């Protein structure tokens, strides 16, 4: 039997600490080049092999630039292990641990997205073609679940507005409706009719065009784990988490307010707007406080999840008790 001897790492391959610590600046400088090279590149099958807790298998995203400073949360990010093991994604089961346990069957590539409705250029587009013209951004956002827990997640994505504009929305487009994949083979939770599949969500057009509204393809600098909504999900940080629909296959611009899954399930408890609001209780529990994952006690919930300054103008003159 041959003994295994590790190859020594030549000192020329060791990154100097200073360079390592300045890696963001390096990435920023490289970003311009990266766009020209057809990045963001994550068109591979490696990701499908990723298992919960095996984060290193997730492909790191390259060519990511920091997002606008004024949009970033100051809060320390939640541990990746927690953000990728505690999920609500009923397509894989209703327990928080089900998505991480069962999402291995989802195939995030090849993936295409249909853009339909009130747009000048409708069509079905391959996800990599959809992403190609855009530069990925880091966005650290608070995430507040309607169940009164919260996380802080460093997403990687592109503003939804930039994507929508490419398809020339017409003036009749007042809302944007989204749908998740339906495929019980890939999403075993869909074998039960827990919800009326497909999962549907929607935004008013001004909400969809807001600079905070993100189409995410990654988190923590890597491609999205399947259980977090790979390969493409919405992130609307001032709304309850269920608005941030996962594994999107359809984006439809509409003249009328679309029906959304939780509203269809229980309209009294879950509204179309679903803005985070500590003053409007869920009919069964209080929304005044939340448990930040990683903390034992509860902390007060912030109006519009702390994004009031950026988004309150969207709701001027609206009674948020009526339009919950």
């Amino acid at each position, binding site marked *: 039997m041959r003994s295994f001897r590790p190859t020594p790492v030549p000192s020329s391959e060791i990154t100097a600490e200073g360079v390592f610590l300045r890696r963001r600046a390096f990435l920023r400088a490289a970003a311009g080049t990266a766009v020209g090279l057809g990045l963001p590149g994550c068109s591979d099958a490696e990701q499908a092999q990723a298992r919960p807790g095996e984060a290193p298998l997730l492909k790191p995203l390259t060519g990511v630039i920091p997002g606008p400073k004024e949009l970033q949360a100051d809060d320390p990010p939640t*541990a990746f*292990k*927690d*953000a990728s*093991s*505690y999920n609500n994604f*009923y397509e894989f089961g*209703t327990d*928080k*641990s089900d998505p991480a346990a069962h999402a291995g069957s989802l195939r995030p590539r090849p993936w295409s997205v249909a853009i339909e409705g009130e747009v000048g250029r409708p069509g079905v587009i391959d996800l990599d073609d959809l992403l190609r013209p855009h530069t990925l951004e880091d966005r650290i956002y608070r995430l507040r679940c309607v*169940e009164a*827990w919260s996380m802080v997640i460093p997403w990687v994505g592109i503003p939804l507005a930039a994507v929508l504009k490419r398809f020339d929305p017409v003036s009749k487009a007042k809302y944007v409706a989204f749908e998740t994949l339906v495929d019980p083979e890939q999403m075993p939770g869909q074998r039960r009719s*827990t*919800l009326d599949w497909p999962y549907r969500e929607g935004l008013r057009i001004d909400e969809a065009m807001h600079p905070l509204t993100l189409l995410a393809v990654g988190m923590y600098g890597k491609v999205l784990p399947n259980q977090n909504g790979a390969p493409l999900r919405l992130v609307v940080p001032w709304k309850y988490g269920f608005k941030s629909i996962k594994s999107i296959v359809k984006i439809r611009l509409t003249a009328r307010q679309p029906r959304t899954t939780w509203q269809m*399930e229980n309209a009294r408890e879950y509204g179309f707007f679903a803005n985070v609001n500590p003053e409007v*209780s869920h009919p*069964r*529990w*209080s929304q005044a406080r939340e*448990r930040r*994952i*990683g903390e*034992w*006690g*509860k902390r007060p919930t912030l109006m519009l999840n702390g994004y009031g300054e950026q988004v309150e103008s969207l709701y001027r003159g609206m009674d948020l008790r009526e339009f919950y």
Partner: protein
Amino acid sequence: MTSRATLHRVVVAVLLLPLAGLVWGALQDSLGANPVEVMTHETGEWALRCLLLCLAVTPARRWLGWSSLAPYRRSFGLLASTYAVCHFLVFLVFDLALDPAFLAEEILERPYITLGFAALLCLLPLAVTSTRGWQRRLGRRWIRLHRLAYLAGGLAVLHFLWLAKADLAAPLAHAAVLGLLFGLRRLPQRRKMPAKAST
């Protein structure tokens, strides 16, 4: 006799394992991303399970003739109360930060909390009066008082159901078991209680 007593102790110890697991897990930080939620759900579900076991003792004796189960009723009932108290304490400490104003608000304004708290209030006097001394002192009234266990079961099942978001499978399964046990109780007793095992 001794082997029976040993078996009884083993059963009680096994039913205390989930509680030990939670304490160990909390100390080791191995309860996952939301340990408080795990502690709340586990203590609540074990309280209900022990209560259902407690309510199953009499039907098992009556319909299956398992008269040696008799002493288990008290143990299961006390286990249910223990888990229910732990369930309440987790809520009081980690969700309400021991604040009586928060507690009052939750009990008054959230119907599922009202139901859960009522279930706890039903169980506590039963735990206190579970001793032979109280049984003797209360006589016939003891039996009537301890029918509160069924009320506690009903309240606990409603408390569980009311919380579910879309998946009712687990609360409905517990409700079905409670319904079955209650139904068995209401069935007319066709034969006399089997004679006490004379072994």
